[in-house]
């Protein structure tokens, strides 16, 4: 069998297939794979698998995907619940035989040990067409064009992408200088009090001066998500986005339709049932949307002490308001009066044109369209 004649190639092919699936497997890892295979008993392929897993995985995501990828390469027949592509057959590889062949091959060679596999491994990877084919067969690809796919079909990489975006936007939020100081080894200002205190240990000689610098703080971020009936389709995306910002920027998240409720604690947890819980919180609200009342409630009760100069308030809503049209302008005016900056995200292509929003235009710093991840990406420069 070809695979047995070329054990190193088989392992290189495996490394290539891992690489195709986003694993960080470089020359060093490949060498370690070979070393592990040489050192371990051949009779127990599971031991070899365990060792290889420790070498090739670097994070939890890799760890979880390993069993499927390992089976797909070494035991293509074993994979269950997948459609097998007919026509393309490839020789099955037997891990035990590969490892055995590798050990035999190197036991015979002079100077057995690290140098031999190194030399072969330096010219990297799949020399035989077999490994090349495995790349084409290997299941889901990493680069997914469905950047703005419907929400029901979100995949883990979309979530990862969202988190990246949120991190980037959070990083861009301009930090504000405060009047407080913080200890910092590379600070510019001498912390006299700490320096003197520390000098007691060295007989009054200030050997290790303490330094500090002015503290800068990220602006506080508040996200208000409209979960009324008219927003039903979009609420899930908005909540996901809000959740990403809870992690990235410590945002506080509120949901509202006729009343307002805080859901930050629910979003902080990594739980599959977030949506259900948010629904439970929002349940019992009446029909319709009362944006102005909710904003007032937010401003005067929930965020009374925190809403200050430089705070950011993000409203995620389509702007249909059951309150009197001028109430929204007044409510947003009060938020603005506290010094907060308001950004209005709307799911439609155009900014909301309801009378309430028209009247409140002056208080809103900007309107941003947000219906897909792509929109969030495009809006990144605006969110500072």
């Amino acid at each position, binding site marked *: 069998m070809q695979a047995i004649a070329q054990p190193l190639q088989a392992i290189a092919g495996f490394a290539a297939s891992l690489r195709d699936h986003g694993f960080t497997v470089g020359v060093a890892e490949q060498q370690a794979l070979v070393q592990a295979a040489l050192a371990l008993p051949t009779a127990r392929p599971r031991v070899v698998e365990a060792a290889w897993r420790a070498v090739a995985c670097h994070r939890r995501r890799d760890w979880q995907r390993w069993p499927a990828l390992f089976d797909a390469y070494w035991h293509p027949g074993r994979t269950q619940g997948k459609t097998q592509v007919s026509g393309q057959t490839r020789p099955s590889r037997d891990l035990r035989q590969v490892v055995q062949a590798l050990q035999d091959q190197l036991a015979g060679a002079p100077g057995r040990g690290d140098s031999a596999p190194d030399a072969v491994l330096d010219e990297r990877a799949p020399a035989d067409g077999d490994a090349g084919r495995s790349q084409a067969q290997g299941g889901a690809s990493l680069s997914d064009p469905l950047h703005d796919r419907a929400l029901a079909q979100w995949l883990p990489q979309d979530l990862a992408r969202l988190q990246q975006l949120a991190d980037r936007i959070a990083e861009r939020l301009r930090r504000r200088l405060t009047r407080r100081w913080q200890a910092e080894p590379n600070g510019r200002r001498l912390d006299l009090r700490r320096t003197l205190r520390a000098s007691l240990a*060295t007989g009054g000689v200030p050997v290790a001066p303490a330094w500090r610098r002015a503290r800068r703080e990220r602006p506080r971020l508040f996200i208000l998500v409209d979960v009324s009936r008219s927003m039903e389709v979009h609420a899930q995306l908005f909540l996901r986005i809000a959740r990403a910002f809870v992690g990235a920027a410590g945002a506080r998240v509120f949901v509202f339709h006729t009343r307002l409720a805080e859901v930050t604690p629910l979003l902080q947890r990594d739980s599959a049932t977030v949506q259900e819980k948010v629904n439970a919180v929002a349940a019992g609200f009446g029909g319709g949307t009362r944006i102005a009342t909710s904003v007032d409630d937010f401003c005067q009760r929930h965020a009374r002490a925190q809403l200050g100069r430089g705070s950011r308030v993000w409203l995620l809503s389509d702007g249909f308001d059951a309150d009197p049209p001028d109430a929204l302008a007044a409510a947003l005016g009060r938020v603005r009066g506290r010094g907060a900056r308001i950004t209005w995200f709307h799911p439609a292509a155009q900014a909301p044109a309801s009378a309430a929003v028209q009247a409140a235009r002056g208080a809103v710093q900007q309107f941003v369209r947000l219906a897909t991840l792509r929109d969030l990406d495009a809006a990144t420069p605006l969110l500072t």
Partner: protein
Amino acid sequence: MPEATHPATEPVDAAPAALAERLHRAGYIADEALATTLWLASELQRPLLLEGDAGVGKTALALALARAEGRRLVRLQCHEGLELAQAAYEWNYGRQLLAIRLHELDPQSLRETDLFDRDYLLERPLLQAITSAQPCVLLIDEIDRADEAFEAFLLEVLSDWQITVPELGTLTARHVPRVVLTSNGTRELSDALRRRCLYHWLDYPTLAREISIVRATLPLAEARLVEQAVAFVQRLRREDLGKTPGVAETLDWVRALHRLGRPALPDDPAALDATLGCLLKTRDDRFQFAPERVLRLLEGRAAVQTGEGVATRPG
């Protein structure tokens, strides 16, 4: 039990199995994959990065490894703002000043270089591990809490096994220590660090393994109590909890029930109420688990003996 995970067909010279055996004697029950990884880490002289939820036994593994190998354990607990002075070394300023004062009358007897001698160097965990005369196990606990600058410093230590002290030169390890790093994932670690380590994700133990862990730790507790309690905790972990109970919580709970003199889990959830504080550690979780819900979890009890493949002890 090691007999369960390593069948009798195991060749005697299989080093990973022998390591698992030693770990078992040191009070840690490792499965085959973990033992292999540990063995490989020593073979390749690579640090081992352990990740997993809180309470799955990451730190305990390092402690057990030190006991199993008969090595000294050097522990570095990471925290925010951890500095080189606390992690690697620091000059003993007090002693240096004292030496200067003592030699003030006779300035010739003390040269400046004498002050930067090893005698005046305070060795912190990293340097201790590097310079240790006997091989040791270095545990770098909760590396995700330290900042990135410290992580970068660790790269030199973990790949070249050396620390550079400007006044003394480079100190190289006499024996490469067995390094175990643990992380709870509060911060994403850098790729460079990850690539220098072997990786193992520690999951919550399976039912059988957890039962054997509890039995090994609390040999006096009734077998029926242990099995039922562990099965209960396993079911509890599948619920949506704010803080999922780890192995340590299971041990606490079984210990509490054992002290209360219970031979098995009571049928009445109210009787458990007082001890549930060992497992549920947030207010929300306590609130969620009203007696009815506990009862529902308790009622899965019949499945312990039949469904999940655990043999019951006769009698």
